[in-house]
């Protein structure tokens, strides 16, 4: 299991390959679920120039470890990698990567989704969107994000 906070841009595909090679035994895993959250250039009807992502050093890592631990208790997770950007972020840069390796597909889908939802609601990160010079706004809250009908 690996949790990383990254103050600079990261390549999610490179990270997941490198981690897989170093941490997983070939032939052991049958399912890999990867979720990547990427910064869009628009949100709530406004064009976004960039974003500042603040966090609480120490608590953020502690909460992420707890969340991944909860996923490992509920599903047969072989390994997991979580990377989250902080600092100044530009559109099209990855913000978050959650990768989960399991033997079977159900555990991979369920665990990665659990980690993402828990991260969204409990990991101390805060986004401030930069709409233009002198024009910025803090996001107020994350949405639940799923169709409920």
């Amino acid at each position: 299991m690996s949790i990383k906070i990254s103050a600079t841009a990261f390549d999610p595909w490179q990270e997941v390959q490198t981690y897989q090679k170093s941490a997983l035994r070939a032939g052991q895993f049958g399912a890999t679920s990867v979720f990547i959250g990427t910064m869009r250039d628009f949100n709530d009807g406004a064009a976004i120039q960039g974003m500042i992502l603040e966090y609480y050093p120490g608590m953020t890592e502690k909460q992420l470890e707890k969340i991944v631990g909860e996923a490992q208790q509920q599903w047969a997770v072989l390994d997991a990698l979580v990377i989250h950007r902080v600092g100044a972020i530009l559109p099209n840069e990855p913000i978050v990567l959650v990768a989960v390796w399991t033997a079977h597909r159900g555990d991979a889908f369920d665990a990665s989704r659990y980690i993402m939802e828990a991260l969204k609601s409990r990991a101390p990160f805060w986004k401030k969107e930069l709409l233009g010079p002198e024009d910025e706004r803090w996001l107020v809250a994350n949405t639940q994000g799923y169709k409920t009908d």
Partner: protein
Amino acid sequence: MIMSIKVRYFASLKESLDRSEDELAFGKSLTVREVWQCANAGKPLPAHILAAVNMDYVDLDSIVQDNDEVAFFPPVTGG
């Protein structure tokens, strides 16, 4: 006995208070809510505020110990 408490603020709350932390000393044990009141005399706790002690979420009525780090922050928006 004097308790030393560090109080930290994040994100929009830090900006509206115009500071990121306080160092407080108390002569008696306090709840998290009372810590806020001591540090921000007269300012009501903003709605939806979250609190942590030593980097774990707590509710506002939990008791703070000597050398604890108390944090207040708005709802999280990562991911």
